[in-house]
């Protein structure tokens, strides 16, 4: 199990390195930067979309677009490129609301994942940013 843990830590460290390297516009990730203090999951958003308030009213008066990409669009677009991530509340709706976001996307690494997979994730996130940013 120590080897599994080491592998997860390596992938997370590599992910945070890739994140700095790619520096994708509006990409936000959650959790500590120290791989000793976290597990093998990487939760993130392409721009943060606030949740609707519980009174059932929309806090703004229009469709939210611009630089934010909804986590479900992120995961669908990654899926098309054979990158499988989960998106949504991850059975932790109160935490999402505490973070002030409608949902997050999450890559969950395990023994079968490699650094190549991490690279592919960021290549595809950069592609998605372009698609939703209207080719910008």
């Amino acid at each position, binding site marked *: 199990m120590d080897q599994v843990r080491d592998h997860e830590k390596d992938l997370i460290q590599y992910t945070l390195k890739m994140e700095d390297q790619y520096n994708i516009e509006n990409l936000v990730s959650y959790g500590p930067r120290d791989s000793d203090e976290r597990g093998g999951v990487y939760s993130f958003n392409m721009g943060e979309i606030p949740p*609707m308030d519980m009174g059932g009213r929309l806090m703004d008066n229009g*469709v939210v*677009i611009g630089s934010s990409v909804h986590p*479900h*669009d992120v995961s669908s677009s990654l899926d098309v490129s054979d990158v499988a991530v989960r998106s949504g509340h991850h059975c932790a709706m109160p935490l999402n609301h505490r973070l002030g976001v*409608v949902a997050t996307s999450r890559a969950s690494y395990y023994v079968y994942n490699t650094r190549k997979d991490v690279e592919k994730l960021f290549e595809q996130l950069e592609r998605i940013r372009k698609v939703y940013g*209207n080719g910008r």
Partner: protein
Amino acid sequence: MEDEERMEFIMEHYRHPHNSGVIDNPTHEITEYNPVCGDAVKVSILIRENKVQDIRFVGRGCSISQAAASILTDEVKGKNMEELKKITEKDHLDSIGIRLGPSREKCALLSFNALKKILVKYGGE
């Protein structure tokens, strides 16, 4: 390829939604919310002389949910109530035109469900 073209059509509606906003004095207004994904649309409608004079929406959510609302509002504007009642779930999904999985279908149907609830309200008056 056809799917790709259709996806561009969806993205166009998402980036530049038709009929976005609220009507000042709507005859009906409904907010439909999906607690699982957090997507929401608020549809306001003005029905006069048995006809949809105006329909607008505001919302928050993924491209599919918001584009679907844009497409639906385009479609129902100017229609009379009999025509409106005839629009089925399948008609709406066909007008979106891309294959959606079961969870994304719910996104697409958010605005459709709002419209159906408005029809129930209208029928009850």
